[in-house]
Structure formats: C-alpha cells, structure tokens
C-alpha cells in the first residue's frame, strides 16, 4: 500500500500492490525527472482511476540559496548571481535589482543605458515567449514548432550576445548604466565603448524573423485543431485566484487581469513614450495563456522597433563612486519579467554588501496554484495545464 506522509514522500510497504490498491486511490510520482516538468519538479499525485484527487508539488531540488549568497556579495557581484534565477530570461532578472540599488543610492542612470535596457528586456521577452511557444506544443505532442521557434530565437540570442557577451547570462547591468559592450574594438587592448557596429540592423533583422515566426506559429499551432482540443477549457484559473495566489504576468492577463508592470511601474524603464497594448484574454484556460504570449511577442516586436529609433546619444554610464556603498534603507522594486512580477526587497545597512535580499520570483507564486487547479483533471490535462504556466525551476526554487 502506498500512502502520503505530510511532505509527500511515498512509503511502499512489502505488501502486494495489486491486492491492496483495490478501490483505493493510488499515489503517482510525476518527476522529478520527467520531460514535462521543465527541470526537477516532482508532482505527487493521488489519482482516483484516471483523475487526480489531490496534487502536491514537491519543490526544492534546484534550491541554490541565492538570498543567503547575496548576503556575502557586493552589489556589483549580485547581478551575476541573479541572472541565473530564471535562465530563460536572464537579462530581465537584472533590471529590477539594479534599479533598486540605483534608487537607494540616488543615482540617475544614463538615459541611453535605460533605453538599451528596455530593448534588451523586450528581446529577452520575445526569446522567452518563443521558448514557451516551442516547448508547449511539444508537451502536447507536436515536435515541429520546437524546431521552428528555436531557429528564430537564435537570431535574438545572437543579438543579445553581440551586445552583452553572453547568451543566457548577460551580466550586463551596472549601477548607473550598462557595461561597455563586448567586441567591436580594433585591437584587443581597445574595448568598444558602445554597442557593436551593426547592432540596430541586426535587431531589425531579428524582429522581422520573429514576426515571421509568429505567423508560422499561428499557422502551425494556434489554429491547430488538436492543440485547441487539448488546451481549450483546460486548467481554468479564475480572476479571484489570480489575485489571491499572487499570479502575475501572462498567466494573470490570460484570466482577464489587466496587470502589466511596464505600465504600472513608470519610473523603472522609459516605457511612457512607447505605444503598446496590454494583452488580456477572458477565459483563463491553457489556450488563452498560450495565446497571450504569442500576441505579446507581436507587442514586444512593436516596442523594440519603436525603441531602436529613439535611443538617445550619450554615455552608457552615469557617474558613480568606484566603491559602491549603498545608504541605509530598504526598498522593494519590481519589474515585468517575461514570467511575471520579479521583485527584489533589499535591506541595506550602508555597506558594500546588502544586509538582506528577498527575491520575489514570478514562477514560485505562479505554480503554487497547481495543487488547486489540478484537482479533478485527467493526467494528460495536468501536463497541458502545467506547461501553459510557463515556469522555470530556477525561478521557482531560487
């Protein structure tokens, strides 16, 4: 007989399984090594026949203790730590943290750097959503979209790499601006002090390709009858649950909550002059969560095209002290990460390293709804629901 203890650890006794399970629910472990769990997530499901009676996610396999590690690092070193939280959107992780430090220090970042941050954040968003749009159909049994979307995503990764030197972990933000870009210098000794030559043209090209990818995905996935049958009406999250569980980002907008920190947190990045829509849907099911992201790619393309035309001239860095000492105080700054609300609560005591950093990551709150939404579902529908939440285990466990 199998049974759950409090933590969801399964104890198997010596008894004959087939005899004792008659008429009872069965405990099924999904993961931690399972293709549909995006890393090491374990779902302990109590199944009654084909239906899930109870579900408890067991997390922590990827817990790296970043909040503790941040307590022994300087502010400049922490950016390298935090762009590994959600590794599918590394650059976007850095922005809220660096803006929080800037606000505590009273540093006004260079306007040019701010616009470059905005562009790279949106490129990261497109890249993140393309990963979603490729891996989600895979979970529903379609392989081709993975290849097609990853092909186009590669152009965006190339652009990010050309500016920052890193594909996944840019570590590009500095207090007061961004780091002088890698490459472009004539000799090894000279470093380029700005974006590499041909950057804007490469961005334009990547945007054209991304738009093409959206069209292709619409043809291949969005209008696909089998995808719609698998995802429509599955894993519905209500408006009230979005609020109570703290679900944010595209998952919230798919349930009709018009929340977008790009519009709300106006002081963060220069989004005011840029025209774009907040995409919302009404049904809150897996298909709407997919659709919101596809439509958001198109909005982000719009944003990037406007932004590259309005990057101001000037230095990439504001003047900051060589040794960063942050005045005592505490602050919470959040940004619209591709997965939702990514925020940092920083307590400074006036030194070079923070006294406490609390990392508020989107995926953590987003998947805490799983144990509620999964009850009564079939197991294949659970996979369709889980995939549609677009989480990354690094962002859950931190």
């Amino acid at each position, binding site marked *: 007989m199998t049974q759950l203890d*409090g*933590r969801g*650890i399964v104890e198997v006794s010596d008894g004959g399984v087939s005899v004792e399970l008659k008429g009872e629910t069965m405990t099924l472990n999904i993961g931690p090594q399972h293709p549909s769990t995006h890393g090491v997530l374990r779902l302990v499901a109590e199944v009654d026949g084909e239906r899930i009676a109870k579900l408890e996610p067991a*997390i*922590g396999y990827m*817990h790296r*203790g970043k*909040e*503790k*590690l941040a*307590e*022994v*690092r*300087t502010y*400049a*070193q922490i950016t390298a730590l935090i762009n590994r939280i959600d590794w599918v959107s590394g650059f976007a992780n850095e922005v809220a943290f660096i803006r929080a430090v800037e*606000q*505590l220090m009273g540093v006004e970042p260079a306007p040019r750097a701010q616009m470059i941050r905005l562009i790279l954040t949106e490129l990261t968003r497109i890249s993140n959503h393309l990963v979603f749009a490729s891996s989600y159909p895979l979970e529903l049994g379609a392989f081709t979209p993975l290849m097609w979307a990853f092909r186009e995503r590669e152009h965006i990764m190339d652009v990010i790499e050309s500016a920052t030197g890193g594909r996944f972990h840019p570590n590009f933000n500095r207090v007061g601006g961004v780091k002088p870009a890698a490459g472009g210098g004539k000799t090894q000794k000279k470093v380029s002090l700005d974006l590499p030559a041909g950057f804007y043209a490469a961005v334009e090209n990547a945007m054209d390709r991304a738009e093409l990818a959206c069209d292709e995905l619409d043809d291949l996935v969005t209008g696909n009858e089998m995808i719609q049958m698998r995802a429509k009406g599955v894993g519905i999250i209500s408006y009230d*649950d*979005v*609020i*109570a*569980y*703290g*679900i944010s980002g595209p998952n*919230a907008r798919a349930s009709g*909550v*018009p*929340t977008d920190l790009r519009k*709300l*947190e106006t*002081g963060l990045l220069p989004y005011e002059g840029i025209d774009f829509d907040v995409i919302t849907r009404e049904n809150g099911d897996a298909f709407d969560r997919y659709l919101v992201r596809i439509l958001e790619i198109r909005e982000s393309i719009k944003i990037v095209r406007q932004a590259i035309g309005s990057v101001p001239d000037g230095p990439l860095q504001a003047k900051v002290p*060589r*040794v*960063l000492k942050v005045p*005592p*105080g*505490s*602050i*919470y700054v*959040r940004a619209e990460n591709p997965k939702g*609300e990514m*925020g940092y*609560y920083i*307590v400074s*005591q*006036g*030194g*070079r*390293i923070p*006294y*406490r950093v*609390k990392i*508020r990551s989107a995926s*953590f*709150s987003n998947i*805490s709804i799983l144990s*509620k939404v999964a009850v009564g579902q079939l197991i294949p529908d659970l996979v369709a629901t889980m995939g549609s939440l677009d989480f990354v285990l690094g962002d859950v*466990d931190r």
Partner: protein
Amino acid sequence: MTDSPSENTPEGFAADFAAEIGAERWTADNDTVHVYVTRDKWVAAATAARDEAGLGFFSFLSAVDWAKEVAVGEPADDVDNLVERYEVLCRLSSATEASAIILATSLDKDDAWLDSLTSVYAGAAWHERETAEMFGIEFRGHPNLIHLYLPDSFEGHPLRKSFALGAREVKPWPGTVDVEELPSTTNVEAAALSGDDTAQSAPEGEGS
C-alpha cells in the same frame, strides 16, 4: 480608492491605511510603504488591506533577521541600539494599480510565532512554509507547515544570521585572497622583470 487626495501619494496612502487599521507606525522611504503592526493585529490588518484598501494581490511574505552578531556578511549598522528580532514582511498590492504596502511586524526571537494568513490569501501558504523553514518562525493555523525547499532531515534555519555559510567558512572574504598570486610571479619579481620600480601590491579591486 482615490476619494481623498492624500491617497494619491505613497505617504498619503500609508497614513490613511495606518490610521484605519490602528498601526503602530508607518514609513514611506524610497517609495516603499511599510506599515508596522503588532502581532495580534497581523491577520486583521491583512484582511483590511484586501477588503478595505483594495490590496488583494499577494506579492510575497518573508522575514529579516535583525541580529547583533552575524555569522556571515556585514553586521547591522547600529549594533549597540539594535533590538534583536525577526521582522516579518508581507507585501500586498493592487493588481491593476500601483498602490501597495508592506505589512511588517516584529517577533521576539524567543517567541517567534505568528498567525497564518492562509485563510485570507491562498498564496501565502508556500511563502509561509519557506519563511518557517528559513527563519524558524511558526505560523499558527497553517494547514501544512512542512519544509518546502529543504530536506526533512535538514537541521537549522539557513537565513538566520547565526547560520554560517560553508563556502565562506573555508574561504575568507572579502579581499585579495579571492585572486591568489601565481607562485612564480610575485609583485616584486614582476616589477624587477619589467624594470618598473613603482609597482606596488595589487590595488584592492572593486568587488573581489
């Protein structure tokens, strides 16, 4: 929400809300509103935030360990006047507007318990489990207060300031030790080789 003009600023919002729930005090430094309540008002204040102030979006719950002695990192600013305590923080915001508060309460270190918010905000469950295992704070009324990240057998509470970080035990920080000198090229030898007699010991880097 915007009946009174004072609510349009973080300060005005904080003052109005603090008066409404009978808070101890409030601050709005760095555009971050903290509203401090006593432990017995914790659940009532969170409920009022949701029902009266429209702050139904559960952002996060965590804590800060204020300790006179720290095993890792830098100590607090004014250690002599520091009151040792756990400060539990819960950020509640509006989903569609910028208004938000961080509800805060202080817990005595020998008596670290707090009523659970799970009956008010469903999303609090995981956050409270994390705070419980990381700081050793008990959340009374929590339906399932077991470890979230850590193995069952794990002892200690990692985010307490008294909890040492293994990596820093074996390798001190900060300083030049992070970059060890190569055995054959000490600064003196390097200076001699290059004929540069102004070379001194390596300047202390910004971070490492």
